[in-house]
């Protein structure tokens, strides 16, 4: 099979797109490029505008401002039935009165493709989504997963420039979801079609996508690879959305040297942090607003006795619940002041902690370099 061809050439350019529904601004000045041959995810909580953007790309909504270019050509004026873009709907939208083969062949019939060629291409598309031999079935006789495959084949058989998928895994049960996730990645590699996926599930986006655009409140927050978003989030919102994050309000920042800052954060006390002053932060001001000292749960270790090591910081608290997850466990540590943090620890560590009662004094500690200094909202 062909290797997925990813090059830097944008297949789809979204430039300064805004969408207004009455008084509601669903999208605000969104610009992004989708590269040819990649799986691109639009990720965000519900109401962030990701579905609106997908519908604008498909042509079911038109932008209030901005432009859309597919291969350098204006897309906005093109009706949805004239765009070389196909979509897999969230409800799959399989035509209930047509057989599987008729469903898949419908788009080709409209293109006035010859009957023999339709049969060949439909057969091939059904093989691709592993529905070979089910062409004569009616949609009512199919499972949810099979209906989704019909919708996939129906869109792919048209050989679109862009395949849009609206929450492709959300309606499937957990086991099927993992299988389908792999299959989608394989299918993309096989066909070389560029995928644009909308999802609210960060796990889904991380596992599927080459690049992710995080949207919130109609605005683009950050674009990047899953790794980049996880390790170098631009702000606390993105960091919190991509995985779990414990964030503490920063109250004071002070520069010690070129590479060190003295940070005072609520609940953490004062510590020396290796790094430079983040952009937009004023030094030394009491009550620095909008900055967070943040730590990921998998970086936190929990010990029964204080064990200050070089380059580590320790926070005292009491033991909370331990949730066994198989390979690892999630330990809750209750901090003074009512908040609690969770730490992901290995099975061995959990075995040490487990016999101790809830409420026993414990110490959460982590390497200071694992602390990220993030603005609450990137400008």
């Amino acid at each position, binding site marked *: 099979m062909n290797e997925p061809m990813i090059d830097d050439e944008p297949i789809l350019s979204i430039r300064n797109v805004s969408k207004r529904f009455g008084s509601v601004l669903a999208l605000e000045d969104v610009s992004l490029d989708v590269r040819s041959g990649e799986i691109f995810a639009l990720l965000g909580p519900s109401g962030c505008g990701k579905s609106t953007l997908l519908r604008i790309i*498909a*042509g*079911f909504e038109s932008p209030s401002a901005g432009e859309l270019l597919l291969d350098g050509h204006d897309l906005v004026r093109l*009706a*949805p*039935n*004239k765009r070389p*873009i*196909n*979509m897999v*709907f*969230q*409800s799959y*939208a*399989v*035509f*209930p*009165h047509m057989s599987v083969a008729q469903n898949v062949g*419908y*788009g080709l019939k*409209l*293109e006035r493709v010859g009957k023999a060629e339709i049969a060949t291409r439909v057969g091939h598309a059904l093989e691709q989504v592993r529905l070979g031999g089910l062409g004569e079935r*009616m949609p*009512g006789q199919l499972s949810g997963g099979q209906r989704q495959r019909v*919708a996939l084949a*129906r*869109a792919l058989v*048209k050989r679109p420039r862009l395949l849009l998928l609206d929450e492709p895994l959300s309606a499937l049960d957990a086991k099927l979801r993992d299988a389908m996730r792999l299959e989608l990645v394989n299918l993309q590699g096989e066909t070389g079609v560029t995928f644009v996926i909308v999802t609210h599930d960060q796990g889904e986006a991380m596992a599927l996508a080459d690049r992710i655009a995080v949207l919130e409140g109609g605005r683009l927050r950050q674009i990047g690879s899953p790794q980049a978003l996880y390790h170098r989030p631009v702000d606390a919102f993105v960091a919190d959305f991509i995985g779990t994050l414990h964030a503490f309000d920063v109250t004071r920042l002070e520069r010690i040297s070129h590479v060190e800052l003295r940070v005072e954060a609520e609940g953490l006390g004062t510590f020396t942090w290796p790094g430079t002053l983040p952009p937009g932060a004023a030094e030394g001001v009491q009550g620095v607003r909008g900055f967070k000292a943040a730590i990921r749960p998998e970086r936190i270790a929990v010990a029964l006795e204080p064990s200050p090591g070089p380059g580590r910081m320790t926070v005292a608290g009491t033991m909370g619940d331990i949730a066994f997850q198989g390979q690892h466990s999630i330990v809750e540590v209750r901090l003074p002041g009512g908040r609690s943090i969770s730490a992901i620890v290995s099975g061995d560590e959990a075995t040490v902690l487990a016999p101790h009662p809830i409420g026993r004094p414990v110490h959460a500690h982590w390497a200071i370099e694992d602390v990220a200094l993030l603005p609450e909202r990137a400008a």
Partner: protein
Amino acid sequence: MKRLHRRARPDAFDYSRRWSLRALFALGCAFLYAPIVVLIVFSFNDSRRGGNVIWKGFTTEYYVKAFGNEELMLAFGNSLTIALVSTVFAVLLGTLTAVLLWRFRFPFKPLVEGLVALPIVIPEICLGVALAIFFTQLGWMNTGELGWPFNLTNITIAHITFSFPFAALVIRTRLQGFNVETEEAARDLGASEWRVFLDILLPHLRPGLVAAALLCFTLSLDDFVITFFTSGPDTVTFPVKIYSMVRFSVTPEINAASTVLILITLVLTWAALRCQKTVKG
């Protein structure tokens, strides 16, 4: 557990074993269907003269007589023609209305919705009188000289008027269950608005269309009040004709004609149900 089970409320089948409920059910059925059964039985009654109330013996003579009654057959033909034509137009109009009200938003939409439903709620007698006045004003009341079937125009129009809101109602209910994403999917695959209507919406509506057509046909076939007001002396329909026959005497001939009508309705209903079954696959 077992005790609990025994004490549980009787289920639907247990209820049907109680004689009191069975009797009540039989009574209900008798109330609904006994008159029809009597009507059919007495269509075979060999009564010579006077009221058709006492069983005198079996005969099919009155069926022959009914089919030989030219006026009755003419009225019957008229009724079928009117029902057929008005059904086609009522379903067409009803579909358009339903799609309009379902699909689009426009000013004064609630008002339009109310107006469409109006013929369902206003008393038939009012609609009958109103239509009679309307046709008189237009000079369409004396259509007798137009010749068949154009002499039936005003009755047909009247029937479309009162039956299309029913069609719209049935079809709109069917539209509620429509997955709008299938329409968008078709657009996405390259279908024009018109193709979407033909390929996606219409097949979805088919059971609704069949039900609406059946409803309109039946409504038209047995309408008396509105037809009575809009028919001229030469344009008599089946119910109007029977009414005028009853005024002279109740003969088994009327029973025979009515039985034929019941038979037609039953066959149509059965056909419609079969249609809907095949659509469901």
